[in-house]
């Protein structure tokens, strides 16, 4: 029970601590995050990073102003594919939060997405990645033709948290030319 309480305490208190969040809150180009260095007890430092991407079968970076395809799901809903790469974070138990909101009024057009999923790794990589997450959009009209903010936050098992936001646009997948995410 004591250990259980400890977990609950971590959950409740961490938002108050600050200093672990590597996000500067700005809109950026979606490249690897370079802020928020973590200093470890042995004096070493690391810089947790998060990179935004798309596509269903391979990581395709998403840059500022990119256009994403709105997919028609087989169960009648719609979604955009979101992929992420992290660096210097625990890939095993990361909590991933995604959202797609309108820049004009902040309206959140995506369904709640707050999951814990493992990131894939490879000995040859200096990153870990999670490919092909479906961010569901209930009302296509809320996103088509709009300036949108795609936000991703990853919090690892050590409560190191990194957030990235990038401005994107969304069109129906069939209207998207080849070569784009």
């Amino acid at each position, binding site marked *: *029970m*004591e250990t259980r309480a400890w977990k*609950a305490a971590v*959950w409740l208190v*961490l938002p108050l601590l600050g200093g672990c969040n590597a996000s500067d809150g700005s809109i950026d180009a979606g490249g690897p995050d370079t802020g928020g260095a973590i200093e470890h007890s042995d004096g070493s430092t690391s810089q947790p990073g998060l990179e935004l991407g798309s596509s269903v079968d391979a990581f395709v970076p998403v840059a500022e102003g990119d256009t994403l395809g709105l997919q028609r799901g*087989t169960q009648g809903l719609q979604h955009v594919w979101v992929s992420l790469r992290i660096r210097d974070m625990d890939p095993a138990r990361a909590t991933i939060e995604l959202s797609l909101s309108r820049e004009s009024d902040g309206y959140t057009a995506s369904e709640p997405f707050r*999951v814990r999923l493992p990131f894939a790794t490879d000995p040859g990589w200096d990153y870990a990645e999670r490919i092909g997450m479906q961010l569901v959009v209930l009302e296509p009209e809320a996103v088509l033709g709009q300036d949108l903010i795609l936000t991703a936050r990853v919090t690892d098992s050590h409560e190191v948290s990194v957030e990235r936001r990038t401005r994107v646009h969304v069109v129906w997948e069939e209207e998207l030319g080849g070569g784009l995410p």
Partner: protein
Amino acid sequence: MSTTQSNLVLALAGLVVLTSLGGCGDDGEATPDTGIDVPDASTPDAGPTMTTSSCAAPIEVVGTIGTVSVVGDTTDGLDGPLDLGQCGNFEVTPRAPQDVIAYTVPGTGPVGVTFTTVTDETLTNFDTVVQVRRGCSTIPEETFPPSCFDDETRTDPRSGGTLSATGGDIVYFIVTGYTDTPLTDTIDRGPYSIEITARANAIPELTGGEVRAIGDRTEIEATAIDEDRDGYGVIATFLDGAGAPVDLDGDGTAEDTLFMLFNGPVTAGSPWTGMTTVFAIRFGDAAALLADRLRALGAATATLQVFDEHWAVSGELTVPVRFIDEVGLGATCDDTHACVMGLRCAASVCEPTPAVAGACVAAIPLAVDTPTTATTSVTQTGTLAEGDGLFEASCAHTPGTESVYSVAVPSGSYDLLATTDFDGTGETDTVLYLRSVCADLLTEVAGGCSDDITSGGVNVRSALELRDVAEGTYTLFVENFGHVMDGPVPYELRVSLRPVLATGASCDPAGRNDRCAAGACAPGTSTCP
């Protein structure tokens, strides 16, 4: 939102510890600069195992009229010690970690309790399962009221439900996860919170009712006094002329009870009236129409009970079973002749209900060109939403919403083809059927109903091939088999007119562009026999 007292105390203890660590939640070990050590994320790491709550030491919650929240985390819990019976994925061992919440029902007298793990604290991919128990160590055996709650919706794996209890009772919530094999997009353990809401609940008092066997359908109607006005469904057993229970499902026993939800909200106020329409019931390994079984068994009366949205059940009442003939549009209706579904009896004549009349007027025309030399087609995409519909097919139960199209068949010799067997239909289990008169189900065209293209779940899309269709305007319905459970489901429909050729005409041996009236198109000559 609040936590239990015990959780709150422990959380404050944790605050002290965390502050002393001085910061970032880091575990004190250097994070590798390159490469990442990857434990198997599908299983807990090798660190210390958390203890979980149990029947011996549950998380104790004293309820209030209103909502209390319990925050927990089963991430590193022990394998679930409690056998949940048929609840969750019972075929997988070890079971996912479990939390046991002992909830003291507030107030006095009947209380309705609603609970949900669909909260901000529960990860959206945590496939929670909640079992409700009255005795912590006792596996619920009854099928009614429900005790196992899994997915909230088809797209949300979290859980919610209701129960009825008495103030002062202790109800146990076993919060765990569904262990899918393999776990891919969901998890069976993790942080969660469960919100538990209680209110005083009036038990419905059943005051009247009737069972009507009309054609293929059986209507069960019940009226009850209930200050909450939250009637939800009816329980029925059927008796023969001697007052003995009948064997509905043919298994040799007469202990057959139907539990049915009402078609929709009950009438406003108290007393309220609710009605459910029953078509098929399980009969052996197959299905049978309830109305046919009641006729065959000579059912004379039924014993009814009603229940509310918290599954609180009324006392019993015995009501008559009546057998009524079914008639169509324009026919005379009276005490022994009822209009088919979609029609109503007005001045002793069957006419479309306003809703059906409106839906028929709003049917979308599919303008299929009149063929000259080859088959002509129109493709239409759409979705079917949740909710109740107005029309019923003959070959499948289609209580949900429908898409209604009108198709004009010109004079001449044509086949009418319709199919949903396209990618745009996705996984939707479609039903197609064709009527000559939109509102009247008795006018369904012979052979004009298709459920599955290939049975056994091989291809659940639909296809009609109607030959030599007479000139006229027909109504084509696109439905989902059963109700659409969550969110809209898509379909892609193609409707075609295929010319039927006379002897000697040039034809397509493949039979796609045309069909010969007198036999197969001769491959060698491409001429109709």
